[in-house]
């Protein structure tokens, strides 16, 4: 149904004459398309959404409180549990915050290894997102293909840090271990294969007429609205706003690499999809440069005390997470435990944009919009 037809249906004289009332539809919390325990109460006028209320908090575990009772080192693994499909990026955000607060200089080789693992994690996240998003809209094949490629990345993680999903990859200061023997070759094999796989997915989706009908012109959000709502990551860039933490607030040697920031034009579901697919290709470019230009050197700074005791004060540091700007606000009182820790989780803030996207659209497009936001409820609720 085109947009014109939709508009016509909403304002037809017949509908007005019939004096219809709105209907409340409960969506979730146990629904496969909500990607977790997320509940939306929709106000429907026929098939059209006129209001949405998001109800979250089902997965709230009080991580920010818990951290106040742990030392800085012991608090590290819990942040993997926020966004559990992009765990390495969470870990990087936290250790980066402590490093910024303590002014720890991370060795160059450790920074490059972090870039490699971060970008692999970003690809893994986007592959899983692509599969589940397509599954939400009825294309089941992509999920199986996406999981196949993600499996290779998980194996790479397992070989590198010993864990597949919640890796606890980085200690404060650097990385623990160097690449194991043969790891780099396996990674390069994967990198050589992935572009062809991405081409395959794009032939399944990018020019698929049904896919275009479900995504083009759906859930449009303008760049100015997206910035005002605080959206970030691919969700914001789908609306054509150039904001990528890796480029705008560089951290961890990202300024060394030459890569583009893919931008959308219309800010619809299709643009958010195509931005993520292009981002995977850009991540491959970064990976290639990082592996080619991998410097030699130590993995941990020479002078680093075993007990992490940052100076009293506060710090805010953010990385480009898989979902958007992933920020950590830490307050230290000079002891070995944080006084306060707050996570600016991109999923939580991006979910605010859902109302703008779905109101006025059809109820079937709510699923497409939730999928296009790429939320993980572990990160929304913390």
């Amino acid at each position, binding site marked *: 149904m085109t947009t014109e037809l939709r508009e016509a249906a909403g304002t037809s004289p017949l509908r007005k004459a019939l004096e219809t009332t709105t209907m409340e539809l409960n969506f979730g919390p146990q629904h496969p398309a909500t990607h977790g325990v997320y509940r939306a109460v929709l106000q429907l006028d026929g098939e059209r959404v006129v209001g949405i209320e998001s109800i979250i908090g089902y997965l709230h575990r009080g991580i920010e409180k818990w951290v106040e009772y742990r030392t800085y080192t012991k608090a590290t693994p819990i942040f993997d549990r926020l966004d559990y499909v992009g765990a390495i990026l969470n870990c990087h955000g936290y250790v980066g915050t402590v490093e910024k607060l303590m002014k720890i200089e991370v060795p160059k080789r450790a920074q490059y290894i972090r870039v490699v693992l971060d970008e692999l994690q970003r690809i893994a996240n986007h592959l899983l997102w692509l599969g589940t998003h397509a599954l939400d809209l009825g294309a089941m094949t992509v999920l199986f293909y996406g999981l196949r490629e993600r499996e290779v990345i998980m194996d790479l993680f397992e070989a590198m840090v010993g864990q597949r999903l919640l890796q606890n990859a980085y200690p404060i200061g650097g990385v623990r271990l160097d690449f194991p023997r043969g790891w780099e070759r396996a990674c390069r094999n994967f990198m050589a294969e992935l572009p062809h796989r991405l081409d395959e997915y794009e032939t399944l989706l990018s020019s698929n007429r049904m896919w275009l009908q479900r995504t083009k012109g759906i859930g449009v959000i303008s760049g100015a609205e997206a910035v005002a709502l605080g959206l970030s990551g691919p969700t914001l860039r789908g609306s054509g706003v150039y904001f990528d933490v890796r480029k705008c607030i560089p951290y961890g040697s990202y300024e060394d690499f030459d890569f583009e920031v893919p931008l959308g034009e219309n800010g619809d579901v299709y643009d958010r999809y195509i931005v993520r697919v292009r981002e995977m290709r850009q991540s491959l470019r970064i990976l290639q440069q990082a592996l080619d230009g991998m410097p030699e050197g130590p993995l941990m700074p020479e002078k680093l005390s075993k007990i992490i005791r940052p100076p009293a*004060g506060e710090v805010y540091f953010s990385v480009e997470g898989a979902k958007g700007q992933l920020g950590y606000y830490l307050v230290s009182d000079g002891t070995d435990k944080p006084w306060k820790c707050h996570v600016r989780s991109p999923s939580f803030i991006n979910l605010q944009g859902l109302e703008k996207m779905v109101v006025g659209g059809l109820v079937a497009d709510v699923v497409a919009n939730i999928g296009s936001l790429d939320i993980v409820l572990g990160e929304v609720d913390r």
Partner: protein
Amino acid sequence: MSDEEKPGQPEPPAASEAPKAPEAAPKAASSPDPTASPAPAAPAAPKPPAPKPAVPPAPKKWEPTGEVVVTPVTEKLAARFGDAVQGVKSPCGEAIVLVKKEKLGEALAFLKSDADCAFDFLSNLTAAHYPVNDKKFEVVYDCYSVAKRHAVRVKVALDDGEPCPSAVPIWPTANWQEREAHDMYGIVFEGHPNLKVILLPEVWDGHPLRKEYPLGGPKEAAIRADKFAKPGYMPDDLEAAERIAEEGRRDH
């Protein structure tokens, strides 16, 4: 809802800070004294083995280290608002300003609308609890400009129960973040369109990120305060634990 919670809220700090008051008193001269005086009466009323909630170590007064960072933005704020804006020390070179509450709304609107500042993106909004400070709460705004690529952190200090002007009219993204700060710290944002619980269940006692709120909640804290209990201990007699917890909750 917040109105119902508020009368109950000031009591737990009084009870929990009571044993630590002698240590903290010489350092923080004025503030703990009025709260300390009614406190000894409270534990005296119930029977002797009354479980005390396990509280974190007594908060000591501390100051941020580092230097005050001056950027064109902070200069501009200082020129515009005079002594209502005060630089805050940062250990890692960030621009931080503390704004008086009366000028907060004006200052945030200025940051958003001024052509040189152009802070169109509110990156982060949160609150913090400093029980020893004169003003016990802080609300923190991390502003970023997508166009100009610079950042500033604005903070405002508040008393317990003192309302804070809402930033939602300036940055709509503040909506959920202020609701979260309201959940976790009980800060009331004036002018917020929909200030209700977001992460906590609708019926929840207390504000979990306040320092006097024990880890795991009052019930678990009561179980742990049982003299036989050690950290990580699971009582054999669950019924007794429930009873102790019930008593603890009543005291709390």
